[in-house]
């Protein structure tokens, strides 16, 4: 079984974030990055499936050069191979654009199963996996939890119709400005 796990690198949860000078993203210098937590769940599930059924786990990451660190961590955890999609055109893509790039890479791999995290800690679209399924022409199931003993709730159960393996499990707009939510107190202090 060939399993693709989509994995993204995001700012660390503990990082102190500041808006960049262009006010369209955060300042990425001087902060640490980590693997997006929901994607770690996807990777762990992929590795468990591989252990049980054999096969291969291929990590697919879209991101700049710094994302190699995330890829290394995934390989250290037991992934067999990785695809790194790196191009300046990929900076701050929306979910649609990200899914397009991922789909182009994943199509060539012809996997049996694609796993993604539910959403990312930065944009938080919670869409990329679903769009990816549409682009690959595959069914999907979101917010999945597998039925392992003691694993807790599944939010929704979906089972493949005969002959179809549900192959994707996730997880043209522009972000013009990113800013701190201003509290009423701050607005008063600023004289507004």
């Amino acid at each position, binding site marked *: 079984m060939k399993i693709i796990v989509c994995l993204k690198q995001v700012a660390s949860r503990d990082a102190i974030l500041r808006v960049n000078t262009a006010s369209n993203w955060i300042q990425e210098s001087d902060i640490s990055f980590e693997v997006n937590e929901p994607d770690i769940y996807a990777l762990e599930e992929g590795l468990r499936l591989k252990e049980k059924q054999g096969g291969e786990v291929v990590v697919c990451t879209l991101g700049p050069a710094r994302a190699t660190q995330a890829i290394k961590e995934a390989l250290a955890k037991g992934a067999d191979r990785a695809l790194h999609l790196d191009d300046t055109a990929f900076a701050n893509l929306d979910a649609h654009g990200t899914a397009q790039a991922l789909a182009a890479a994943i199509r060539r791999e012809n996997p049996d199963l694609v796993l993604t995290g539910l959403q990312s800690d930065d944009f*938080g679209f919670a869409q990329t996996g679903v769009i990816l399924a549409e682009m690959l022409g595959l069914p*999907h199931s979101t917010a999945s939890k597998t039925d392992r003993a003691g694993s807790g709730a599944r939010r929704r159960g*979906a089972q493949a119709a005969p002959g179809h393996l549900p192959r994707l499990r996730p997880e043209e*707009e522009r*972000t013009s*400005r990113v800013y701190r939510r201003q509290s009423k107190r701050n607005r008063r202090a600023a004289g507004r």
Partner: protein
Amino acid sequence: MADEILVYAEHQEGKLARPAWEAVAAAQHLAGDFGGSCIAAIVGKNIGSLAGELAGAGLQEVLTVESPQLAEYTADGYSLALRQVIEQRQPRFVVFSHTYQVRDFAPRLAASLDRALIGDALGYRHEGERAIFVRQVFQGKFSADVEFTGKPPYFISFQAGAFREDSVQRGSAQAKITAVEIAIPAEAIRTRPQEKFREAKQAVDLSQAEVIVAVGRGIKKPENLELVKKLAEALGAELGASRPICDSGWLPMDRQIGSSGQTVAPKLYVALGISGAIQHQVGMKGSRTVVAVNKDREAPIFEISTYGIADDLFEIVPPLIEEIKKAKAG
């Protein structure tokens, strides 16, 4: 008909629930700012009475989208059905409430028409002809302005509570109900829903609690929950949590407070390490006194807190427990 605003009216267990009405309210709001008429689509099987109920709201038209293949929700079926509706009507906006179901199929629907979905918006601003949507990024630490750059239809889902159910304008007459012709081949449905289940029976009713100590992601590790439990014990409080804590299984689902959990209104609400995203706020903003402890002084929880402590909860809570014990003993 390019100026129509199409509302997706979700129904749950045979009823039109809050998300449907909130989406209607959002669409009416958009129509007020950008013009156009609101129409609503309801998808399923045997939905005539729901369509009738919907027709009482101030809508131009209610579209029923029925097929035996749509008797049960599937992402494949619903996105294929609505895609045909959108192709026929060519609306300018397609408006959803950001529910679990919408998260499941709306990105797929938009992508099938080569469009983007702006998901989970808190609201929008109207600047000339531009609609600038606001959504939270970095887990609520920042907001972002987002605009569509391509051609309509524009797909947009709004967060629970972004528009109020009670702001829906009622119509003076019943809207026209139209059945939309669609075709869904059986093989287009590639998943089969299994039995529905709810993991946790509502074993704990937090809605009646007078004091609640709630904990969020700031607690970092499940082992650290002991500290929070001690504070709850000292205060004689019930324990609550934000969604990430319950999703991670650190506390049972019936402790969750917010839009997908319980709604509470205690006399005292202590929020520890909770950033206070709107989904959490809608579940606790009725609390009389809110005490918030969060390292991030910009956290939205401070906007609605009576007392705010912008500091590390691991520094604040232990001496607080001691002081409460002392005060109680004295």
